[in-house]
C-alpha cells in the first residue's frame, strides 16, 4: 500500500454530504472512530474504497471523502470482493449491518471470509432492522419482541464471531460504538491485518432497539461485564481488576483473584495468533450475564490472501506462457489456410 508523505487527519475523511442518521445513533461514533483509524493508517484518500450494502449503517460511504459505493441489500461483501480482486492496490472497507451481512447477505459474508480477501468488514450489530422500522434480525436474542415478532421470536440468533470462525475466519475483533478509542484501535489492527478482518461493533439503535447493549455500557458495571482482550496478556477484567478467566475442563470459567485463591499466573494468557480456533470461539461466544463479553482482537491468524494468490498465479502462468496476446490465442491449435484459387 502506498503511503502518502503528509499526515492525514480524521477531518480529511469527512465528506460534504449531510448526515442523515438519527440524533443519538451509535453510527455517528463509529464514523468518527473509522475516520480516526484512517488518519492513523495514513493511506491516501484516493486509495480507499468504502463499500456498503443497504440499511442504516450502509449510508456510511456517503459520509466518507474517499471512493465509495452504496450498493444493494446484502451484496456489499460480493461487490467489495470484486473491487479488491480487480484492483488489489485499493484499501477496501466494507460496511454492513447485522441484517445486511448475516440475513440477506449471509452467503456472501461467509464466502468472502472463507476466501480471505484482504478487506475490512465492519459489522454494525444493533440486533434489529432499523431502516425498515423495527423487525428482528438474525442477531436478535431468542424471544425478542419486535414489530414482526409481537409475541417474541422463536428462532436462535447467530453469534457473529462464531460464524466468522466457522467460515474459516482469520481475524475477528469486537468493540462498542461509544468506545471511540477501542473502535479506532481495533479498526487500525483490522486494516493492518492481511486478509478478511471482521470487526463486530455493538451499536445502539436509539429508535427501535434502544439500550440493547445497555448492560455493557453501564457506567458503573461495564468493566465487570466486559473484558478487553490483548494479545500476550492475561485475561483479567473487572472494575477492581480482580476477575479473570481460566480453562476449566472443556469450558471457560470466571475466577476471582486473591479472595478466590487464584493468582494472575493461573489465568489464561490471550493468544490471538493461535491457529486452533477452540478458545477463540469460546471467547467470541461469551455472553452476559454468564460471562463478560469479549472486546478487542479475539483472533488474528496469518494466512495467504485470495487476491495475492490470484496475482501470483497469473504471474506464474505468464512466466512460461506460450500466449502473449489475443492474436496468439486466436491462431493457436488446429488452424488451416485457405488460399485464393
Amino acid at each position, binding site marked *: 500500500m502506498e503511503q502518502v508523505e503528509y499526515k492525514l487527519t480524521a477531518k480529511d475523511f469527512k*465528506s460534504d*454530504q449531510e448526515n442523515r442518521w438519527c440524533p443519538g445513533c451509535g453510527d455517528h461514533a463509529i464514523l468518527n472512530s473509522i475516520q480516526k483509524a484512517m488518519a492513523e493508517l495514513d493511506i*491516501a*484518500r*484516493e*486509495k480507499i*474504497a468504502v*463499500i456498503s450494502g*443497504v440499511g442504516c449503517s450502509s449510508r456510511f*460511504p*456517503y459520509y*466518507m*471523502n*474517499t*471512493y*465509495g*459505493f*452504496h*450498493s*444493494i441489500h446484502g*451484496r456489499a461483501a*460480493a*461487490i*467489495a*470482493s*470484486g*473491487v*479488491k*480482486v*480487480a*484492483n488489489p*492496490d*485499493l484499501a477496501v472497507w466494507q460496511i454492513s449491518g447485522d441484517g445486511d451481512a448475516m440475513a440477506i447477505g449471509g*452467503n*456472501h459474508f461467509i*464466502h468472502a471470509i472463507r476466501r480471505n480477501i484482504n478487506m475490512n468488514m465492519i459489522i454494525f450489530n444493533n440486533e434489529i432492522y432499523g431502516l425498515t422500522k423495527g423487525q428482528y434480525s438474525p442477531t436478535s436474542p431468542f424471544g425478542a419482541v419486535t414489530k414482526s415478532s409481537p409475541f417474541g421470536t422463536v428462532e436462535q440468533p447467530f453469534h457473529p464471531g462464531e460464524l466468522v470462525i466457522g467460515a474459516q475466519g482469520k481475524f475477528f475483533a469486537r468493540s462498542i460504538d461509544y468506545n471511540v478509542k477501542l473502535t479506532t484501535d481495533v479498526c487500525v489492527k483490522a486494516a493492518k491485518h492481511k486478509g478478511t478482518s471482521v470487526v463486530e461493533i455493538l451499536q445502539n439503535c436509539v429508535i427501535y432497539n434502544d439500550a440493547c447493549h445497555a448492560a455493557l455500557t453501564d457506567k458503573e458495571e461495564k468493566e465487570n461485564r466486559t473484558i478487553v482482550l490483548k494479545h500476550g496478556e492475561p485475561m483479567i477484567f473487572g472494575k477492581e481488576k480482580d476477575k479473570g478467566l481460566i480453562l476449566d475442563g472443556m469450558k471457560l470459567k470466571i475466577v476471582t483473584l486473591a479472595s478466590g485463591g487464584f493468582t494472575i499466573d493461573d489465568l489464561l494468557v490471550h493468544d490471538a495468533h493461535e491457529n486452533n480456533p477452540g478458545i477463540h470461539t469460546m471467547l467470541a461466544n461469551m455472553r452476559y450475564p454468564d460471562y463478560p463479553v469479549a472486546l478487542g482482537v479475539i483472533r488474528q491468524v496469518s494466512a495467504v490472501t485470495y487476491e495475492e494468490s*490470484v496475482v501470483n*498465479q*497469473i504471474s506464474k*502462468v*505468464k512466466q512460461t*506462457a*506460450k*500466449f*502473449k*496476446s*489475443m*492474436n496468439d*490465442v*486466436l*491462431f493457436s*491449435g*488446429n*488452424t*488451416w*489456410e*485457405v*488460399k*485464393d*484459387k
Partner: protein
Amino acid sequence: MSFYFFLAYFVELNCFKNQLQYTMSKNANIVEKEDVVIRFSGDSGDGMQLTGTQFSNTSALFGNDVSTFPDYPAEIRAPQGTVGGVSGFQLHFGHSEVNTPGDYADVLVAMNPAALKSNIIWAKKGGTIIINEDAFTEKNLVRAGYDFDPIEKYKRDYNFICAPISNLTKEALKDFEMDQKSILRTKNMFALGMVYWLFDRPLCYTEKFFEEKFRKKPQVVEANKLVLRAGFNFAETIEALPMHYKVAPAKIKSGTYRNISGNTATAWGLIAGAEKANLPLFCGSYPITPATEILHELAMRKDLGVKTFQAEDEIAGICTAIGAAFAGNLACTTTSGPGLALKTEASGLAVITELPLVIVNVQRGGPSTGLPTKTEQSDLLQALHGRSGEAPLVVIAASTPSNCFDYAFEASRIALEHMTPVILLTDGFLANGSEPWRIPKMESLPTINVPFATPEDENYLPYNRDPETLVRKWAIPGMKGLEHRIGGLEKMDKTGAVSYVPENHEVMTYLRDDKIKQVAQTIPELKIIGDEDADLLVIGWGGTYGHLYSAIKDIRKEGKKIAFVHFHYLWPLPKNTVELIGKFKKVVVCELNLGQLADHLRVNVPKLECEKFNKIQGQPFTIVELSEKFNQLLEEL
C-alpha cells in the same frame, strides 16, 4: 508392428463378416456428395460428443465447411441404456457453404437400442444407420422400450449396418493390460473409424488429438489409435457399407481458419474487447449449463491476465463483476436464464450507477430449471424488461457460433463506450455448436475508446454527461482528486448526491433512457437478405440465423421472391427498423419462443401486423418446416 497385427486381425474379421446384416450392395461405390449430415448417438457415457467433435475437426481441417449441434441430456450418467440417457451429436459438412447442422442425418450411428429409438426420427429415409449389434440384446431392447425388433421393422426404410462394435473392440485390445470397462470405453473410436472410412477422412488429426490429450498415458493413446484404425479397416474390409462418399473441400474465402464453438468464441470476444480497450478482464460467474464453458475458457487465460472469480452464487457473480467495474476493469458475468433471473436486482444497480458491464445469457429452455441442455430464445423479454423500475440497458444477440466472438466484442465496446450494462444473448444451440471461422487479426478490430475521467477534469462530477451521447465519465478508484460516491439510491443530476427530489427523478429516468437510445447512432442499420421487392419479409434474431438463411436460400432457388432480416441489436433497435419493416406486405417473425420479438416489435413499430412462427421444443428449427411455412405464406399472398 501394427501392420502385422492387422494381417492377423483381418483373418479374424472375416469370421465376423458372416454375422453382419446388411441390405445394400457389397460393392463400395465412390459417390461425390455436396454435403452430408451425420448423427452420432449413444449412452451419455459413450463418448458421442468427443466422437462428433473429432469428426467435425477432421472435416474442418480437411477443408469442408462444417456446422455442429450437440444434443445431450442434463444427466451426466442417466441409467445406462435408457432413452433419457441418450447423448447425440449432429454435424453437417459440405463442399459449399453450410449454415446449419442439417435437419436430417444421412448417416446415423446408434450405439444401443435407446439411441436408435430416440434418434431414428432424425435419420433420412433411405439413409444409413450403423448400429453396435452387441448392444442390441433383448434386455437392452426392453430397456429402451422396444417391444419389437426395430431392425426387422425399419430395414426396408434404412440401410442398416450391424457391426459387433463391442466385441471387435475387445478383440482389438485383447493384448492390452486394461480392464474391460476401460477397453469398452474406446468403442466410440471404432464407430468413428468406420465413419472415417465411409467419408474418406484421414485418421491423423484424431491420432494427434489422442497423442496430445493423453501424453502421460501412452497406453490410452495406443488403445484409442488401435481401435480407431480397427474400425476404419473393418469398414474397408467388410465392404458392407453401401457407399464410399467423397465430399470435396468447400470453396471459401481465403484466410486462416479454425473450428470454434459459440462459448469459446464468446470468451475470446470478451478478451479481445479487454485487449482493445487496454483494460484487465474480470469475470465473476457461477457455473450453469449451457454457459459454463465460457468461464472455463476465461479461466484458462491467466496467461493474458484474465481474472475469473467463481462466485458462491449467481448474485455474487454479477456483484463481484460490478465491484470490478467500479474498480476499473472490463467486467463480465456469464449465465443462463435462471441465473439471469437471480442477477435481476444487481443488473438494475449497474443501470443506475451507469457502470460498464457485460452480462452474457446463454439461453436454454425455461421456465425455472426447464431444459438445461436444450436451446430456446425465451429470455428476450426478461433481458429487455426484467428489472425493477425503469431500467433500460442494451440487449444484443449473436447469430452463429463464430459470430459470438463479434458480438461479445461488440457488447464490450458498447458497455465501455456508453457506460452501461449490456446483455448479450446467445443460446444452447450456438454455445455448443461449432463451425469453421475465418480468424480475424486483432489489428482488424476497432479500437474501444473508454470515457475515462482524468485528474485534468476539474471539478469532476460523476453524473456530468457528454451532451450528445449522454455518457458519464468513468473515474477509476486510485486516481487522486476524483474521489466520489455512487450507489443504488436515486442521485442528483450531475453531482450524484442522493436525491429524492421528484422532478430530479424524472430527469434522471429520461436521461438513462435517452442514453441507451443514443446507442442506436453507433450501430449498423438492418440489411435485407434476399429480394428487396418481395412481398414477404421473414424476421429472425439470434441463433436461428443459419436455419432461416438456408430456408430463404432454398426458396429463392425455386425462383420465388422472399426477403429476410435478422436482428443482432434488440435494444435499442437499429435506426431503420420501422422504415424497413413498413415496406413489406406481409411479415412473419420466427422464434424459438411464443413470439417475444414479435411482441417487442409490435410495441416499437407502429401498426405492425405480423404473423408469428414459433417452436418451443428445445430444438432448433428445421429448414424443412421453415420452408413449408414460407411457401404457405407466399401462396396466401
